[in-house]
């Protein structure tokens, strides 16, 4: 039961090889990546990687700290403790005879999903939402026969705090960073 999912947001320098650095770090230290999403940000020099890590508190603490060691990494935040908006997208190709379409369309409606394609043997359904919602949609479509699924990684924004908090002091001697408390998130967890 201790295995949980932790979304971590990572701001990185937008430079060649940076994704390999982050992915390689996870591979060689044995962290389990559940999903990974990379994209541009409001600043063309900065990319944002959202990685969902499976494991326990200790794993996610080490993963965040190891990420901070990378020179290409500008900022790391474990978003699991934040009120947040979390979205991923799935395209689901499901078997659907013309008779089954109505039923499936009802599901699509309930999940506020979209139908992107219909032919006489299948439909492609697009569903966006947090992990649980996407999985629930897939589960509900399983009885019809899922032909294939393509999923994006989750992307996450905290509701109230900007990830850039604490970045003002880059380069100076010591600036307390709310996400990089020297007490270490590790101790924070220990006390709980």
């Amino acid at each position, binding site marked *: 039961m201790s295995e949980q999912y932790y979304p971590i947001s990572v*701001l990185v*320098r937008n430079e*060649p*090889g940076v994704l*390999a*650095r982050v992915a*390689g*770090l996870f591979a*060689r230290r044995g962290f389990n990546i559940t999903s990974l999403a990379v994209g541009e940000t409001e600043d063309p*020099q900065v990319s944002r990687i959202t990685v969902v890590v499976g494991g326990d508190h*200790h794993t996610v*603490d*080490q993963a965040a*700290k*190891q990420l*901070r*060691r*990378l*020179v*290409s*990494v*500008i*900022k790391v935040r474990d978003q699991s403790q934040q009120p947040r908006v979390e979205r991923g997208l799935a395209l689901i190709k499901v078997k659907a005879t013309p008779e089954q379409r109505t039923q499936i369309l009802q599901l699509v409606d309930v999940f506020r999903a979209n139908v992107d394609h219909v032919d006489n043997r299948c439909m492609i359904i697009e569903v966006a939402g947090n992990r649980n919602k996407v999985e629930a949609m897939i589960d509900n479509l399983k009885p019809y026969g899922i032909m294939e699924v393509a999923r994006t990684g989750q992307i996450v924004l905290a509701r109230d705090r900007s990830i850039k908090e604490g*970045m003002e*002091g*880059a*380069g*100076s*001697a*010591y*600036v*307390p960073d709310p996400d*990089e408390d*020297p*007490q*270490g998130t*590790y*101790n924070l967890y*220990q006390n709980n």
Partner: protein
Amino acid sequence: MTGTPYTGADAVVDALRAQGVELIFGMVGGQIMPVYDALYRHRCFGHVLVGHEQGAAHMAEGYARATGKPGVVMTTSGPGATNLVTGLADAFMDSTPLVAITGQVGTSLLGNDAFQEADMRGITMPITKHNYQVQSADELPEVFAEAFYVALSGRPGPVLIDLPRDVAVSECERRQATPLPPTGYKPPFKGHPLQVERALQVIQKAKRPCILAGGGIIHASGHKHLLEFAELLNIPVTTTLMGLGAFPAGHRLDLGMPGMHGTGYANLSIYNSDVLIVTGCRLDDRVTGNVQRFAPSAKIVHIDIDASEMGKNMHCDVGVVGDAGQVLMQMLAGARQWEEKPDTAAWLKQIDGWKAKYPMVYPQSEGIIAPQWAIQETAKLLSSDDIVVTGVGQHQMMVAQYYPFTKPRTLISSGGLGTMGFGLPAAIGAQMGAQDKHVVCFDGDGSFLMNIQELATAVRYRVPLVAIVLNNAWLGMVAQWQRMFFDKRMSQSETAVPPYDKVAEAFGAMGRRVEKPSEFVPALEWALAAAKDNKLPVVLDVMIEREAEVLPMVPPGGANAEFIPCKSGECK
């Protein structure tokens, strides 16, 4: 040079000059030739042409470890660059500041499996602190400025710059590096005051405190603060292999090295401590043994510049992220205000009991050289400022146990990676960085062979080091494990090495074979004098007790407190 266009290669040389580089270790080859051409034209700093690129990397490590300045390595692409891999991994594990510059095929050929192409950025990603592939000559000043800053600051480490040939030959503007671009790289320096205060609160209540000091103290030049802190509060200090020299051996509070081959009293002190102050040390498995039974009743105060070390190998009760020297200074300031200091007299008395019960002794036989004895005799002939370098194996552990290091940067050894063949090239680099000192390289007969080609380098550049090969014709540490844990099945552990004194002479160095204890000290006296007088390396091939064991020893997976103690008397 008027009329010659200013190219990327010139920018490389200017960037190195801007960083105050005095010496480069390297090997020329196809894709790096434009930079070597610039070195030839500018003639602004020294270059050591090595026998093998691995040697260059270890030399740069030895130079860096002896001087505290970054070591610089330059090689060509492909095999020249991949030969650096072991040295980079070694530097990464031991946090040694290194900047490696590798040639690369032109950008238009990248990814085409061109001649002597190897993806150095990909290969070295896990074993460098950071690496770069320069895309345009215009980036060079910034890339080099950042590379040196990254290599030296925070927790030091190796940085690699991959330089495609077309970048080196393309024309560019001669200019200074502009300030570094925004990045999240902001190495900590001072500890957080709140954490320092929490650490002090734990220490103040301690009854059986112990300090575990690692190589971070040496990187931070924190040895004086460590001594002052330990003396102020009367806390005993044990130093890891990388930390040896950070606390003076023989001091009343010194416990020697902990861990697998640590002293019994260091391991017992850690095991029985109620507060363990870990500083500049990453609690590697060779130090902790079985983690569950390492300091089981202690509160752990962990001071390290790398936040990821907090809780990585072991839980920590109070973590202080910062430079070990700075944090100790902050803690000193706090502890000096205390009206009541912890009373450790009873604890120190208990430790004295362990020192008496488990002394560092070794068996000796008439007419046969015990390696531990040779190490102790060597220490008597050298001054405390002289530098000792080792290879990896039994001799390395014996040096760590029996050589009394009292000053930082006097032991240079491959700790984390355990690289056999490290000794000779690292000694060359160390001697080049510290020309006024004696540099003695203890090596094993197996380890010495691994980079023996660098004897040619030592002769060419007239490096007056003394190599003492403790020769038992075994891969000794492997043989010891086979005797202890593999029922004496001596699988592939016996060596058949050439006579190293003769090998040395053939290389143009000097050598002498030593077989009896009575010959050892005279031979070493001769070697130390002859090396300096002739400005040549000297190799002593010393035949030692073949089955000498490194003891104490904690069997792998065991608890440190359950060590196999030293034996004494006659050899069996």
